[in-house]
C-alpha cells in the first residue's frame, strides 16, 4: 500500500479527533494528533457508559481492514497507529500558509516527568504534600500535584501540575527511576526587570520574586529600563503603565523593538485596565491589576517562565488541518444567580459528576452514593436545560445531548440501585430526536423512570436534612415540593475553552452562538479552505453525530490533499523482505527488562535463566536495564543481529507502547513483528506489591508469565495470507443530495464513481424543500451540485436506472443495473454507498385526503410554491406535529418536521402578519441552533400548544365546503380549545426508501423502521455490518439537508479507506481453515459475526475472507474437528500457556 502521501494536523484528541485521525491514517495519510490536555479521549475518558447499550464499545472504531497497523487494544487505553503521531499537552500557537501547505507552530507544555523513564509506579504521588481537586473525577475527590491524568491510559507517565506544584522536591527523591526533574536552578537564569516609579512596589516585587529564585533587577523609569535592556538580556519585564515621562505602553513599544523576544507583563490600576488590554494587541503578554499579592504574581511569572524556558516549540508542515476541539460544559457557578444551589447545596451535582459517581474508576468505585456524605442514593432528580435553552445565560440553543444522557443516567441509577431507586427527569421537551432515541426513552419509562414536564424554578435545602428540595408547579397548577437525595444538573454545552483563540489564529469567524462557524450547508467546511471542523467543535453534537462529522472532516481534508497533488508526500516505506523462518524450529531470544531492579532483583537472574532454559526453544536469555530507552533498545537490536533468532520475547511493561517499536525492529532485523511479543511483567509486579512481602517475592510468578508467553510465541507462525484485491471504483445508489455529495467526494479523490438514480433527474427532496430553516437556498445548492456531478470526468450518472441484483464483498462487488428502457449492464466495484433517500410518510390520520384544506408539510409547501395557496388569504393555520411518528409502529422522531413547521410558520407570518398560526406538538424538537428559530417563532406570536399521546387533537372536517375545526386540550387552561383552521398542516415525518432486497444483496440489513441498520450507532454510524457497504442521507436515518450532506461525506471517507488500497491485507490474527480436518459442517459460517466465511461449492472448501475476519476466534471454539484455527492464538497456543501456567 502507498503510505504517507500527505500529512494532516488534527487538533483535539477526543472522540472526533480520534475518528478523524484514524480515518486519515487508514487512508494512508500521516496524522499529527494533538490535544491540549495531558491525555487523549477527551471527555469520553471520563464517561464509562453510553446509550443505547449503556456500556462503552469505543474499540469498535479501530481499523477493521488493516488491523495490524493499529494496536488491538481498548481505545480507552490510548490510540496506537503507525501513521498517527500523538502530541499531548500541546496547543497551536500559529497557523500560516495555504491549503496543501500549512506551517503550524505547536507548543508542548513540559510535564517535568520524563515519559521515557517514568514507569507509572506511583511512588511519587503519596509523598506529594499538595492536594487539589481531581479534574478526572470532575472535582469529586482530590489528587496530588504529581498525578496520572487518566488512570487507565497508557503510556501512563505521571505529570506535574505546575499551578499546584510547590516545588518541594519530595517526588524527585521518591522517584526510583530518576524521571522527575524539578530543579529551580534554572530560575536563576530567568532574568526579570521590574519597572515602576514607586520604590515600594519595586522593592516588594523584587523581594517576592527573588524568594522564588528568580534573578531580578529594577528600574525607576522608562528610559532607565531601556538602558538596562540594552546592557543585559532579560526574559521578562514587569512594567507599570502610569509613569511620569515615558508610560508603560510606550516603554513596551520601544522595549519590544529593542528585544523582540522579551515577554512584557503590564501592571495597572483598575482605571487603566482598558489601556492594558489594548497594549496586549501590541505585544504585551498579560497584565496584573494593582494591588496584587505574591499569590497572584508568582504563578503568573512561573507560567511565563515555564512556557518560555521548557516548552518545546515545533513546527509541522501539513496539507490540511482538522479542528476537533470538542466542547465544554456550562458552569452552573457562572450564572449570576445560581438558582439550583450548585456549590451551596452539596447534594446538587453536575451530570459529569454523576457519570463519575457511577463509574467503576470513580470516587465511589461505581457505588451509587452521595459524594459528600457517602449515603446511598434512593431518590434522584435530573433537571434538564441547565445552561441550555436559556436566553438569560446566553444560550439560545439546545445542547442536543442532555436529554439522552439524562435518560441514560436515570437508567444507570436504577440499575445500580437494584430497582430501589426512584429517578425523575424534569424537562421542558424530551428531545429524543435520533433514530433509536424514542424507543430508548420509552424503555426508561417502562423501567419506572418518571418524566415530569416543567422547568424547575429553584432548588433549596430542606429545613431539616439540608437535602435539595424542588418546588414546582404541576401542569394542573398545583404547587408541589419534593425532596431528593441527589439532584443532577444536566449541563448544556459551551464552546471549548480556547476555541475563540484557535479560531482567531486560523482566521475563522465565530457563529452567533460563539462557536467556530462553518460554511452554509456544510457542517465541516469553513471559510478558509484546507481548515475543516470535525465533531462538536462547531457546536452541540452527540457522539454519533460527532463521529459522522469527524469522518466528513477527514473527507474534506483528504480532498484538499488530493487537490494539492498530495504535495507533502513522504518517502514511501519499502516493503520489508522478512526472513522466512517458517521451516525452522523455534529459536527464541528472551529479553528481560530489569527496569532498574524493579522487575528483576539481581539475585534472581540465575533462577530465571534456569526456568526459561527448561524450554529447548529458548536460544538465549538476556537482561537489559530499561529496554525502553534508546540504549536499551539498541542493545536488543544488537543481540538480535548477533545471533538472529526466529522469535523474540520481551519481558517489560506495557505491551501497548511497544507496538510501533516492534514494527521498526522488524524492519531493522527482518524478523516479522508477528514473531515478537511483549509480556507485561511490571503490572503483575505492581498488583502483587500490596499482597504482603511473601507473595510479592513469589519468585516463580514473573518467570511463569514469561514461560506462558513463550509457550504461545513459539507456536506462532506467520502465515502469508492472500490479500484481497480491490476493484478501485465505487457505486453510489441514489442521486439525491447525499448520493451526489458522496459521489463527488469519492471522485474528487481520484476514483471512478457510478451514480445510479431511479428517477429521471438528480436532486431527491431538495426541489420541494426549497430552502432551509436558516434560509439557505437549496435550489442553488442543487443546481451547483448537479452541475459539478454532470461535468466530473470520474462520475458516470445512470438515470432512470435501478440496481436489479448484486453480490460480492468488500473490494469486489458485482451489481446489475437495469434502466427503464430494459437495458441491463453489470458493474464491478469495490464499495457501495446506499443513498436511496426517503420521502414524507403517507398518512390517513386527522382526515387527510378528505378535505382540500388538510395538507402534509410537503403538500403545503408545494401548494404554496405553485401558487395554489395564498398566504394572504389565510386567517388561521393549525399544524399538528408527530402525526404517526414517535408512537408504534413508527416509534422514532423524524427530527426535521418541527424545524420545518417553524420555517413554514415564520414564512407565513412574514407574508401575512395577521395570520394566526397554532402548532400542536408533543415535544418540540428544535435541537441545536434551531432553537433560536423556535424563540423567534414564539416572539412572532406563533402559538405552541402541547398535547399528549393519550389526548390527541381532534379534527372535524365534515365536508369540503365546511371549515376544518381542530380541538385540543390546552394543558395550561385544562380545557378544550377549538380552532377553526383555513389550513391544517400535518407533519407526518420521514419514511425511508431503502428496499430491503437491495440492502440484502450487499449483505446489509435494515432496522425495524426500514433504515439501514448501522454497524454501531455511535462508533460506526455510516457503516453497515458488511464491510464495504455504507449508507448516507435519509437511507441511514432522518436528518436535515446539512446533516445528510455530512453523512454522505462520512460515507465517502469510509469508502475511500478501502479504495486507497490495491489490496486488503490480512491481519496476523486471522482465522484459517485446515481443510484436511474440515467436515464442511458449516457451523463456523453461522457463528462468524462478520460473515467472513463461506462454503465454496466448486472447491468444496470453507474459505475465509481475511479482509472481513476480525480474529475473534468464535469459529475455532465452535469447530468440532479442530479445523478452524485462529492463527496466533489457537488451541495449541492456549494449551501451551495452560501447561506453563499450571506447571
Amino acid at each position, binding site marked *: 500500500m502507498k503510505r504517507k502521501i500527505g500529512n494532516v494536523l488534527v487538533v483535539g484528541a477526543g472522540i472526533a479527533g480520534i475518528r478523524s485521525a484514524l480515518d486519515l491514517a487508514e487512508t494512508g495519510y500521516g496524522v499529527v494528533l494533538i490535544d491540549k490536555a495531558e491525555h487523549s479521549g477527551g471527555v469520553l475518558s471520563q464517561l464509562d457508559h453510553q446509550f443505547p447499550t449503556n456500556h462503552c*464499545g469505543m474499540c469498535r472504531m479501530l481499523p477493521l481492514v488493516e488491523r495490524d497497523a493499529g494496536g488491538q487494544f481498548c481505545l480507552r487505553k490510548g490510540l496506537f497507529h503507525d501513521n498517527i503521531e500523538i502530541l499531548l499537552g500541546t496547543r497551536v500557537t500559529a497557523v500560516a500558509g495555504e491549503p496543501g501547505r500549512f506551517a503550524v507552530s505547536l507548543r508542548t507544555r513540559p510535564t517535568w516527568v520524563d515519559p521515557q523513564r517514568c514507569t507509572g509506579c506511583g511512588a511519587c504521588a503519596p509523598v506529594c504534600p499538595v492536594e487539589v481537586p481531581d479534574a478526572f473525577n470532575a472535582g469529586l475527590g482530590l489528587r496530588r500535584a504529581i498525578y496520572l491524568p487518566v*488512570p487507565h491510559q497508557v503510556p501512563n507517565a505521571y505529570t506535574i501540575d505546575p499551578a499546584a506544584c510547590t516545588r518541594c522536591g519530595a517526588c524527585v527523591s521518591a522517584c526510583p527511576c530518576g524521571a522527575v526533574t524539578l530543579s529551580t536552578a534554572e530560575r536563576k537564569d530567568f532574568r526579570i526587570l521590574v519597572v515602576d516609579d514607586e520604590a515600594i512596589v519595586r522593592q516588594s516585587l523584587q523581594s517576592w520574586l527573588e524568594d522564588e529564585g528568580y534573578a531580578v533587577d529594577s528600574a525607576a523609569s522608562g528610559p532607565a529600563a531601556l538602558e538596562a535592556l540594552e546592557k543585559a538580556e532579560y526574559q521578562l519585564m514587569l512594567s507599570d503603565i502610569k509613569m511620569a515621562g515615558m508610560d508603560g505602553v510606550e516603554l513596551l513599544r520601544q522595549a519590544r523593538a529593542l528585544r523582540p523576544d522579551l515577554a512584557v507583563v503590564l501592571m495597572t490600576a483598575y482605571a487603566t485596565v482598558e489601556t492594558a488590554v489594548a497594549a496586549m494587541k501590541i505585544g504585551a503578554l498579560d497584565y496584573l491589576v494593582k494591588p496584587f499579592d505574591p499569590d497572584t504574581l508568582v504563578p503568573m511569572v512561573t507560567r511565563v517562565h515555564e512556557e518560555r524556558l521548557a516548552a518545546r516549540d515545533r513546527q509541522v508542515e501539513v496539507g490540511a488541518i482538522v479542528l476537533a476541539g470538542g466542547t465544554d460544559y456550562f458552569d452552573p457557578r457562572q450564572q449570576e444567580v445560581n438558582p439550583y444551589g450548585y456549590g451551596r447545596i452539596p447534594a446538587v451535582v453536575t451530570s459529569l459528576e454523576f457519570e463519575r459517581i457511577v463509574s*467503576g474508576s470513580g470516587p465511589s468505585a461505581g457505588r451509587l452514593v452521595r459524594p459528600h456524605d457517602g449515603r446511598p442514593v434512593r431518590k434522584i432528580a435530573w433537571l434538564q436545560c441547565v445552561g441550555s435553552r436559556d436566553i438569560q445565560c446566553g444560550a439560545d440553543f439546545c445542547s442536543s445531548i442532555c436529554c439522552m444522557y439524562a435518560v441514560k443516567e436515570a437508567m444507570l441509577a436504577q440499575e445500580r440501585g437494584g430497582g430501589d431507586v426512584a429517578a425523575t427527569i424534569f424537562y421542558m421537551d424530551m428531545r429524543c430526536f435520533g433514530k433509536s432515541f424514542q424507543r430508548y426513552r420509552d424503555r426508561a419509562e417502562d423501567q419506572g423512570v418518571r418524566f415530569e414536564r416543567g422547568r424547575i424554578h429553584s432548588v433549596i435545602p430542606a429545613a431539616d436534612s439540608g437535602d435539595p428540595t424542588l418546588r414546582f408547579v404541576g401542569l394542573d397548577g398545583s404547587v408541589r415540593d419534593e425532596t431528593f437525595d441527589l439532584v443532577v444538573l444536566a449541563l448544556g454545552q459551551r464552546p471549548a475553552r480556547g476555541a475563540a483563540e484557535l479560531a482567531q489564529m486560523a482566521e475563522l469567524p465565530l457563529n452567533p452562538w460563539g462557536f467556530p462557524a462553518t460554511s452554509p450547508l456544510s457542517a465541516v467546511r469553513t471559510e478558509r479552505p484546507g481548515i475543516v471542523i470535525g465533531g462538536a467543535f462547531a457546536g452541540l453534537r452527540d457522539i454519533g453525530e460527532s463521529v459522522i462529522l469527524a469522518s466528513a472532516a477527514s473527507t474534506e481534508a483528504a480532498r484538499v490533499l488530493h487537490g494539492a497533488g498530495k504535495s507533502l508526500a513522504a518517502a514511501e516505506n519499502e516493503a520489508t523482505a522478512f526472513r522466512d523462518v517458517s521451516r525452522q524450529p523455534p529459536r527464541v531470544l528472551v529479553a528481560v527488562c530489569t527496569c532498574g531492579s524493579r522487575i528483576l532483583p539481581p539475585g534472581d537472574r540465575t533462577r530465571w535463566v534456569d526456568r526459561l532454559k527448561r524450554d529447548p526453544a529458548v536460544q538465549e536469555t538476556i537482561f537489559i536495564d530499561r529496554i525502553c530507552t534508546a540504549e536499551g533498545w539498541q542493545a536488543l537490536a544488537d543481540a538480535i543481529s548477533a545471533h538472529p533468532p526466529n522469535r523474540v520475547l520481551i519481558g517489560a511493561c506495557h505491551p501497548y507502547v511497544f507496538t510501533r517499536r516492534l514494527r521498526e525492529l522488524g524492519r531493522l532485523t527482518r524478523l516479522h513483528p508477528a514473531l515478537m511479543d511483549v509480556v507485561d511483567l511490571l503490572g503483575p509486579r505492581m498488583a502483587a506489591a500490596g499482597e504482603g512481602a511473601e507473595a510479592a517475592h513469589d519468585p516463580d510468578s514473573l518467570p511463569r508469565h514469561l514461560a506462558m508467553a513463550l509457550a504461545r510465541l513459539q507456536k506462532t507462525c506467520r502465515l502469508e495470507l492472500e490479500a484481497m484485491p480491490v476493484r478501485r471504483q465505487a457505486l453510489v445508489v441514489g442521486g439525491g443530495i447525499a448520493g451526489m455529495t458522496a459521489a463527488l467526494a469519492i471522485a474528487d479523490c481520484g476514483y471512478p464513481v457510478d451514480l445510479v438514480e431511479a428517477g429521471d433527474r438528480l436532486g431527491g427532496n431538495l426541489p420541494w424543500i426549497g430552502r432551509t430553516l436558516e434560509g439557505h437556498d437549496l435550489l442553488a445548492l442543487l443546481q451547483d451540485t448537479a452541475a459539478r456531478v454532470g461535468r466530473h470526468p470520474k462520475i458516470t450518472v445512470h438515470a432512470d436506472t435501478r440496481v436489479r441484483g448484486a453480490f460480492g464483498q468488500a473490494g469486489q462487488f458485482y451489481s446489475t443495473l437495469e434502466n427503464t428502457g430494459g437495458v441491463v449492464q453489470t458493474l464491478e466495484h469495490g464499495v457501495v454507498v446506499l443513498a436511496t433517500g426517503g420521502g414524507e410518510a403517507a398518512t390517513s390520520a386527522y382526515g387527510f385526503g378528505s378535505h382540500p384544506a388538510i395538507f402534509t408539510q410537503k403538500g403545503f409547501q408545494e401548494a404554496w410554491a405553485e401558487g395554489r395557496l395564498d398566504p394572504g388569504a389565510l386567517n388561521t393555520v393549525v399544524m399538528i406535529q408527530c402525526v404517526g411518528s414517535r408512537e408504534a409502529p413508527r416509534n422514532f422522531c423524524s427530527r426535521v418536521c418541527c424545524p420545518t413547521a417553524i420555517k413554514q410558520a415564520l414564512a407565513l407570518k412574514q407574508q401575512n402578519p395577521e395570520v394566526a398560526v397554532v402548532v400542536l406538538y408533543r415535544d418540540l424538537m428544535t435541537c441545536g441552533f434551531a432553537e433560536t428559530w423556535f424563540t423567534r417563532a414564539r416572539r412572532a406570536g406563533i402559538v405552541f400548544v402541547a398535547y399528549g399521546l393519550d389526548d390527541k387533537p381532534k379534527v372535524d372536517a365534515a365536508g369540503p365546503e365546511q371549515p376544518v375545526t381542530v380541538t385540543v386540550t390546552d394543558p395550561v387552561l385544562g380545557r378544550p380549545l377549538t380552532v377553526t383552521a383555513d389550513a391544517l398542516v400535518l407533519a407526518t415525518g420521514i419514511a425511508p426508501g431503502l428496499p430491503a432486497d437491495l440492502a440484502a444483496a450487499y449483505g446489509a440489513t435494515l432496522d425495524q423502521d426500514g433504515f439501514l441498520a448501522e454497524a454501531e450507532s455511535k462508533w460506526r454510524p455510516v457503516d453497515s455490518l458488511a464491510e464495504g457497504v455504507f449508507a448516507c442521507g435519509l437511507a441511514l436515518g432522518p436528518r436535515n439537508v446539512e446533516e445528510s450532506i455530512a453523512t454522505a461525506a462520512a460515507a465517502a471517507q469510509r469508502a475511500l479507506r478501502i479504495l486507497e488500497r490495491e489490496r486488503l491485507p490480512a491481519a496476523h490474527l486471522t482465522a484459517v481453515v485446515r481443510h484436511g480436518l474440515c467436515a464442511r459442517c458449516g457451523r463456523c459460517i453461522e457463528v462468524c459475526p462478520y460473515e467472513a466465511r463461506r462454503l465454496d461449492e466448486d472447491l468444496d472448501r470453507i474459505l475465509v475472507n481475511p479482509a472481513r475476519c476480525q480474529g*475473534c476466534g468464535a469459529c475455532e471454539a465452535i469447530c468440532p474437528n479442530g479445523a478452524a484455527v485462529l492463527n496466533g*492464538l489457537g488451541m495449541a497456543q*492456549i494449551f501451551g500457556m495452560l501447561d506453563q*501456567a499450571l506447571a
Partner: protein
Amino acid sequence: MSAFEPTIIAFVCNWCTYTGADLAGTSRQTYPLNVRLIRVMCTGMVDPQYVLKALLEGADGILVSGCHPGDCHYINGNYKARRRIKLLKTLLPQFGFAPQRLRLTWIGASDGIEFARVMRELVEQVRALGPSEAGAKMVI
C-alpha cells in the same frame, strides 16, 4: 504452607476485562497472585476444552470474563460464552468437578476495582471448596 492456596486460571477478553485487570494493576488494586491470566481475544473463543484442560491439569478454579452484554467488541462473542459456560457448568459434575469452580463475569475496561474485588472473592470461594477434585482420581 499454612493454608490451601488455590490456583485460578482466568480467561479474560482482550478488550474489556484485560484492560480492567491492567487498570487494577496500575491503580494499585491488589489482587491475589493465585490468579493466572490468559488473554484471549474474546470470551466467545473460549473452547470448553480449555476449561476442562485447565481443571484436569490442576487448576482449582476457572474464571471466564469478558465485556458486558451488548458491549462485545466482536458484536456477540460474550453471548456465545454465556450459553457455552451455562452448558459447561451442567457438564462439570460429570467430570467430577464442582460447578462452582467455573465462573463467568462481565468486567469492563474501567472496572479495575471490580476486577480486583471479583478476584479476591473468587479465590475465597475456591479456597472454601478446597483443592480440585482432579489428580489421582482422573485418567485422561
